[in-house]
Protein backbone atom coordinates (compact mmCIF):
# COMPACT_ATOMS: atom_id res chain seq x y z
CA UNK A 1 0.00 0.00 0.00
CA UNK A 2 1.39 3.37 -1.03
CA UNK A 3 1.24 6.24 1.45
CA UNK A 4 -0.69 8.99 -0.40
CA UNK A 5 1.31 11.73 1.35
CA UNK A 6 4.40 10.65 -0.55
CA UNK A 7 2.75 11.21 -3.93
CA UNK A 8 3.69 14.92 -3.79
CA UNK A 9 7.35 13.89 -3.65
CA UNK A 10 7.14 11.61 -6.70
CA UNK A 11 9.30 13.86 -8.89
CA UNK A 12 12.32 14.19 -6.57
CA UNK A 13 12.08 10.53 -5.51
CA UNK A 14 11.91 9.31 -9.13
CA UNK A 15 14.94 11.48 -10.00
CA UNK A 16 16.80 10.06 -6.99
CA UNK A 17 15.90 6.47 -7.97
CA UNK A 18 17.11 7.04 -11.54
CA UNK A 19 20.44 8.41 -10.29
CA UNK A 20 20.89 5.55 -7.81
CA UNK A 21 20.24 3.10 -10.67
CA UNK A 22 23.06 4.78 -12.62
CA UNK A 23 25.32 4.63 -9.55
CA UNK A 24 24.67 0.90 -9.17
CA UNK A 25 25.04 0.15 -12.90
CA UNK A 26 28.34 2.06 -13.20
CA UNK A 27 29.49 0.43 -9.96
CA UNK A 28 28.91 -2.99 -11.52
CA UNK A 29 30.89 -2.04 -14.63
CA UNK A 30 33.74 -0.64 -12.53
CA UNK A 31 33.79 -3.82 -10.42
CA UNK A 32 33.88 -6.01 -13.55
CA UNK A 33 36.63 -3.97 -15.21
CA UNK A 34 38.86 -3.28 -12.20
CA UNK A 35 38.42 -6.44 -10.12
CA UNK A 36 36.44 -9.17 -11.90
CA UNK A 37 33.77 -11.61 -10.87
CA UNK A 38 35.81 -14.60 -9.74
CA UNK A 39 37.99 -15.31 -6.75
CA UNK A 40 41.22 -15.49 -8.76
CA UNK A 41 40.77 -12.01 -10.18
CA UNK A 42 39.84 -10.63 -6.75
CA UNK A 43 43.02 -12.10 -5.25
CA UNK A 44 45.11 -10.74 -8.11
CA UNK A 45 43.58 -7.30 -7.62
CA UNK A 46 44.40 -7.16 -3.89
CA UNK A 47 47.60 -9.23 -3.73
CA UNK A 48 49.10 -8.19 -7.06
CA UNK A 49 50.00 -10.36 -10.02
CA UNK A 50 53.33 -11.13 -11.62
CA UNK A 51 51.57 -11.95 -14.88
CA UNK A 52 50.13 -8.44 -15.23
CA UNK A 53 52.94 -6.66 -13.35
CA UNK A 54 50.31 -5.42 -10.87
CA UNK A 55 51.68 -4.53 -7.41
CA UNK A 56 49.79 -5.50 -4.22
CA UNK A 57 47.37 -2.89 -2.93
CA UNK A 58 48.81 -0.63 -0.24
CA UNK A 59 46.91 0.23 2.93
CA UNK A 60 46.73 3.85 1.73
CA UNK A 61 45.28 2.71 -1.60
CA UNK A 62 42.63 0.57 0.10
CA UNK A 63 41.68 3.40 2.47
CA UNK A 64 41.43 5.85 -0.43
CA UNK A 65 38.58 3.75 -1.82
CA UNK A 66 37.05 2.58 1.46
CA UNK A 67 36.74 5.91 3.28
CA UNK A 68 34.48 7.71 0.73
CA UNK A 69 32.44 4.50 0.41
CA UNK A 70 32.02 4.34 4.21
CA UNK A 71 30.11 7.61 3.93
CA UNK A 72 28.43 7.20 0.55
CA UNK A 73 27.12 3.61 0.83
CA UNK A 74 25.46 3.91 4.27
CA UNK A 75 24.00 7.28 3.29
CA UNK A 76 22.59 5.84 0.07
CA UNK A 77 21.15 2.80 1.85
CA UNK A 78 19.75 4.86 4.72
CA UNK A 79 17.92 7.25 2.38
CA UNK A 80 16.71 4.57 -0.05
CA UNK A 81 15.39 2.25 2.68
CA UNK A 82 13.89 5.18 4.54
CA UNK A 83 12.02 6.29 1.41
CA UNK A 84 10.75 2.76 0.74
CA UNK A 85 9.68 2.34 4.37
CA UNK A 86 7.81 5.58 4.28
CA UNK A 87 6.33 5.33 0.79
CA UNK A 88 5.16 1.73 1.13
CA UNK A 89 3.51 0.49 4.28
CA UNK A 90 5.89 -2.43 4.52
CA UNK A 91 5.52 -5.74 6.28
CA UNK A 92 7.98 -5.67 9.12
CA UNK A 93 9.66 -9.08 8.81
CA UNK A 94 10.40 -9.22 5.03
CA UNK A 95 11.47 -5.58 5.14
CA UNK A 96 13.87 -6.27 8.00
CA UNK A 97 15.23 -9.38 6.25
CA UNK A 98 15.93 -7.59 2.96
CA UNK A 99 17.35 -4.57 4.81
CA UNK A 100 19.60 -6.87 6.85
CA UNK A 101 20.93 -8.60 3.73
CA UNK A 102 21.59 -5.21 2.08
CA UNK A 103 23.43 -3.77 5.10
CA UNK A 104 25.34 -7.02 5.57
CA UNK A 105 26.49 -7.12 1.94
CA UNK A 106 27.51 -3.45 2.11
CA UNK A 107 29.54 -3.99 5.28
CA UNK A 108 31.25 -7.13 4.00
CA UNK A 109 31.85 -5.56 0.58
CA UNK A 110 33.73 -2.62 2.05
CA UNK A 111 35.60 -4.52 4.76
CA UNK A 112 36.58 -7.80 3.15
CA UNK A 113 39.16 -6.19 0.84
CA UNK A 114 41.34 -5.46 3.89
CA UNK A 115 40.96 -9.04 5.09
CA UNK A 116 41.90 -10.46 1.67
CA UNK A 117 44.98 -8.26 1.44
CA UNK A 118 46.29 -8.53 5.00
CA UNK A 119 44.78 -11.63 6.63
CA UNK A 120 43.11 -14.35 4.60
CA UNK A 121 43.21 -14.31 0.76
CA UNK A 122 40.77 -17.25 0.65
CA UNK A 123 37.99 -14.77 1.45
CA UNK A 124 38.18 -13.50 -2.15
CA UNK A 125 34.90 -15.15 -3.31
CA UNK A 126 33.10 -13.39 -0.45
CA UNK A 127 33.92 -10.04 -2.08
CA UNK A 128 32.05 -11.14 -5.22
CA UNK A 129 29.12 -12.55 -3.23
CA UNK A 130 28.81 -9.35 -1.19
CA UNK A 131 28.94 -7.14 -4.27
CA UNK A 132 26.38 -9.19 -6.20
CA UNK A 133 24.15 -9.33 -3.11
CA UNK A 134 24.30 -5.56 -2.71
CA UNK A 135 23.51 -5.00 -6.40
CA UNK A 136 20.56 -7.43 -6.40
CA UNK A 137 19.02 -6.13 -3.18
CA UNK A 138 19.49 -2.51 -4.30
CA UNK A 139 17.69 -3.40 -7.53
CA UNK A 140 14.82 -4.74 -5.41
CA UNK A 141 14.73 -1.54 -3.32
CA UNK A 142 14.72 0.61 -6.46
CA UNK A 143 11.87 -1.41 -7.96
CA UNK A 144 9.88 -0.94 -4.75
CA UNK A 145 10.64 2.78 -4.82
CA UNK A 146 9.55 2.98 -8.46
CA UNK A 147 6.35 1.10 -7.61
CA UNK A 148 5.66 3.68 -4.90
CA UNK A 149 6.10 6.79 -7.02
CA UNK A 150 5.11 5.77 -10.55
CA UNK A 151 1.43 6.09 -11.48
CA UNK A 152 -0.39 2.77 -10.82
CA UNK A 153 -0.51 0.54 -13.91
CA UNK A 154 -3.89 -1.04 -13.12
CA UNK A 155 -5.55 0.68 -10.22
CA UNK A 156 -3.63 0.97 -6.94
CA UNK A 157 -0.53 -1.17 -6.53
CA UNK A 158 -1.34 -4.60 -5.21
CA UNK A 159 -0.01 -6.03 -2.01
CA UNK A 160 3.17 -7.98 -2.63
CA UNK A 161 5.46 -10.11 -0.53
CA UNK A 162 7.09 -7.12 1.10
CA UNK A 163 4.23 -4.65 1.31
CA UNK A 164 1.27 -5.04 3.61
CA UNK A 165 -2.21 -5.98 2.50
CA UNK A 166 -4.48 -3.08 1.65
CA UNK A 167 -7.00 -4.51 4.07
CA UNK A 168 -4.55 -4.11 6.90
CA UNK A 169 -4.64 -0.85 8.83
CA UNK A 170 -1.95 1.56 7.62
CA UNK A 171 0.98 1.86 9.93
CA UNK A 172 4.49 3.20 9.62
CA UNK A 173 7.09 0.58 8.89
CA UNK A 174 9.52 -0.14 11.70
CA UNK A 175 12.41 -2.50 11.77
Amino acid at each position, binding site marked *: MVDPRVRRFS*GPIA*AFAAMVA*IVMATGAVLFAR*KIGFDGGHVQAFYLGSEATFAPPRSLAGLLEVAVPHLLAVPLLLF*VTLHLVAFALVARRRPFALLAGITWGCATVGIGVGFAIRFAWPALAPLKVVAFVGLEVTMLAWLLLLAAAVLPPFRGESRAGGLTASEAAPPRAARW
Partner: protein
Amino acid sequence: MRFLVQPNPAVLDRARPPVRAFLAFAALLLVGWAASRAAHGALTPDGLARILEPSPGERFGPLALWEEVHQGAFLYGFLLLTVGSLLVVSPVAPGLRNALVGLATAAALVDLLAPFLPVAWPGFPGWAELRIGAFALAMATLLAAVVVAWATFGREARRTGG
Protein backbone atom coordinates in the same frame (compact mmCIF):
# COMPACT_ATOMS: atom_id res chain seq x y z
CA MET B 1 10.83 12.47 5.31
CA ARG B 2 8.37 12.33 8.19
CA PHE B 3 9.04 16.02 8.87
CA LEU B 4 8.56 16.88 5.20
CA VAL B 5 5.25 15.08 4.79
CA GLN B 6 3.81 16.41 8.07
CA PRO B 7 4.88 20.05 7.99
CA ASN B 8 3.26 22.56 10.28
CA PRO B 9 4.01 26.29 10.47
CA ALA B 10 5.92 26.16 13.74
CA VAL B 11 8.14 23.28 12.64
CA LEU B 12 8.81 24.87 9.25
CA ASP B 13 9.74 28.15 10.91
CA ARG B 14 12.16 26.40 13.28
CA ALA B 15 13.67 24.46 10.41
CA ARG B 16 14.35 27.51 8.29
CA PRO B 17 17.88 28.44 9.53
CA PRO B 18 19.40 24.93 9.14
CA VAL B 19 17.64 24.47 5.80
CA ARG B 20 19.11 27.77 4.59
CA ALA B 21 22.57 26.74 5.79
CA PHE B 22 22.20 23.45 3.89
CA LEU B 23 21.07 25.31 0.77
CA ALA B 24 24.10 27.62 1.02
CA PHE B 25 26.36 24.56 1.03
CA ALA B 26 24.39 23.07 -1.88
CA ALA B 27 25.04 26.27 -3.84
CA LEU B 28 28.74 26.08 -2.93
CA LEU B 29 28.80 22.47 -4.11
CA LEU B 30 27.33 23.47 -7.49
CA VAL B 31 29.84 26.31 -7.92
CA GLY B 32 32.69 24.05 -6.81
CA TRP B 33 31.57 21.29 -9.17
CA ALA B 34 31.60 23.69 -12.13
CA ALA B 35 35.00 25.09 -11.06
CA SER B 36 36.39 21.56 -10.74
CA ARG B 37 35.30 20.67 -14.25
CA ALA B 38 36.73 23.92 -15.57
CA ALA B 39 40.05 23.26 -13.80
CA HIS B 40 40.23 19.80 -15.39
CA GLY B 41 39.53 21.25 -18.82
CA ALA B 42 36.16 19.48 -18.98
CA LEU B 43 34.22 22.58 -20.05
CA THR B 44 35.74 22.70 -23.54
CA PRO B 45 35.05 20.14 -26.29
CA ASP B 46 38.78 19.49 -26.80
CA GLY B 47 39.40 19.01 -23.10
CA LEU B 48 36.44 16.65 -22.75
CA ALA B 49 37.56 14.61 -25.74
CA ARG B 50 41.05 14.31 -24.22
CA ILE B 51 39.67 13.08 -20.88
CA LEU B 52 36.68 10.94 -21.80
CA GLU B 53 36.80 9.92 -25.47
CA PRO B 54 37.70 6.23 -25.87
CA SER B 55 41.12 5.39 -27.26
CA PRO B 56 41.22 3.12 -30.33
CA GLY B 57 40.44 -0.43 -29.23
CA GLU B 58 38.96 0.69 -25.89
CA ARG B 59 35.54 -0.90 -26.38
CA PHE B 60 33.87 0.29 -23.20
CA GLY B 61 35.47 3.71 -22.87
CA PRO B 62 38.08 4.85 -20.34
CA LEU B 63 37.70 3.90 -16.68
CA ALA B 64 37.78 7.63 -15.85
CA LEU B 65 34.46 8.02 -17.65
CA TRP B 66 32.75 5.31 -15.58
CA GLU B 67 34.21 6.69 -12.36
CA GLU B 68 33.08 10.21 -13.16
CA VAL B 69 29.54 9.10 -14.00
CA HIS B 70 29.47 6.93 -10.83
CA GLN B 71 30.32 9.94 -8.64
CA GLY B 72 28.26 12.43 -10.66
CA ALA B 73 25.07 10.36 -10.41
CA PHE B 74 25.52 10.13 -6.63
CA LEU B 75 25.79 13.93 -6.31
CA TYR B 76 22.92 14.62 -8.69
CA GLY B 77 20.71 12.05 -6.92
CA PHE B 78 21.07 13.61 -3.50
CA LEU B 79 20.81 17.19 -4.78
CA LEU B 80 17.63 16.43 -6.73
CA LEU B 81 16.06 14.58 -3.81
CA THR B 82 16.86 17.13 -1.12
CA VAL B 83 16.30 20.37 -3.04
CA GLY B 84 13.26 18.92 -4.87
CA SER B 85 11.70 17.78 -1.58
CA LEU B 86 12.27 21.20 -0.01
CA LEU B 87 10.50 22.80 -2.99
CA VAL B 88 7.53 20.47 -2.43
CA VAL B 89 6.99 21.81 1.09
CA SER B 90 7.68 25.43 0.08
CA PRO B 91 4.99 27.79 -1.23
CA VAL B 92 6.13 27.40 -4.85
CA ALA B 93 3.81 27.09 -7.85
CA PRO B 94 3.64 23.40 -8.87
CA GLY B 95 4.41 24.38 -12.46
CA LEU B 96 7.65 26.12 -11.49
CA ARG B 97 8.64 23.31 -9.13
CA ASN B 98 8.00 20.59 -11.70
CA ALA B 99 9.79 22.59 -14.40
CA LEU B 100 12.89 23.06 -12.22
CA VAL B 101 13.07 19.44 -11.03
CA GLY B 102 12.16 18.01 -14.46
CA LEU B 103 14.64 20.18 -16.38
CA ALA B 104 17.42 19.56 -13.85
CA THR B 105 16.83 15.79 -13.98
CA ALA B 106 16.74 15.66 -17.79
CA ALA B 107 19.86 17.84 -18.08
CA ALA B 108 21.66 15.74 -15.46
CA LEU B 109 20.84 12.52 -17.33
CA VAL B 110 22.14 14.00 -20.60
CA ASP B 111 25.26 15.26 -18.82
CA LEU B 112 25.94 11.79 -17.40
CA LEU B 113 25.07 9.75 -20.50
CA ALA B 114 26.34 11.94 -23.38
CA PRO B 115 29.97 10.73 -23.05
CA PHE B 116 28.76 7.20 -23.82
CA LEU B 117 27.69 8.29 -27.32
CA PRO B 118 31.23 8.06 -28.77
CA VAL B 119 31.67 4.76 -26.90
CA ALA B 120 28.61 3.27 -28.60
CA TRP B 121 29.16 5.06 -31.92
CA PRO B 122 32.85 6.00 -32.37
CA GLY B 123 33.24 9.44 -33.89
CA PHE B 124 29.75 10.56 -32.82
CA PRO B 125 29.74 14.30 -33.60
CA GLY B 126 28.83 16.98 -31.07
CA TRP B 127 28.70 14.81 -27.94
CA ALA B 128 31.11 17.09 -26.07
CA GLU B 129 29.09 20.23 -26.85
CA LEU B 130 25.92 18.37 -25.84
CA ARG B 131 27.49 17.40 -22.53
CA ILE B 132 28.77 20.89 -21.79
CA GLY B 133 25.36 22.39 -22.59
CA ALA B 134 23.55 19.80 -20.46
CA PHE B 135 25.93 20.40 -17.54
CA ALA B 136 25.39 24.16 -17.80
CA LEU B 137 21.61 23.65 -17.85
CA ALA B 138 21.74 21.22 -14.91
CA MET B 139 23.85 23.65 -12.86
CA ALA B 140 21.60 26.61 -13.77
CA THR B 141 18.33 24.83 -12.93
CA LEU B 142 19.70 23.32 -9.70
CA LEU B 143 21.07 26.70 -8.65
CA ALA B 144 17.70 28.29 -9.47
CA ALA B 145 15.96 25.58 -7.40
CA VAL B 146 18.31 26.28 -4.49
CA VAL B 147 17.61 30.03 -4.73
CA VAL B 148 13.83 29.48 -4.90
CA ALA B 149 13.93 27.10 -1.92
CA TRP B 150 16.11 29.60 0.01
CA ALA B 151 13.63 32.40 -0.65
CA THR B 152 10.41 30.51 -0.03
CA PHE B 153 10.98 27.69 2.49
CA GLY B 154 9.00 28.37 5.67
CA ARG B 155 7.71 31.69 4.33
CA GLU B 156 4.06 30.99 5.08
CA ALA B 157 5.02 29.69 8.49
CA ARG B 158 6.67 33.00 9.30
CA ARG B 159 3.62 34.89 8.12
CA THR B 160 1.31 32.71 10.22
CA GLY B 161 3.59 32.96 13.21
CA GLY B 162 3.47 36.76 12.79
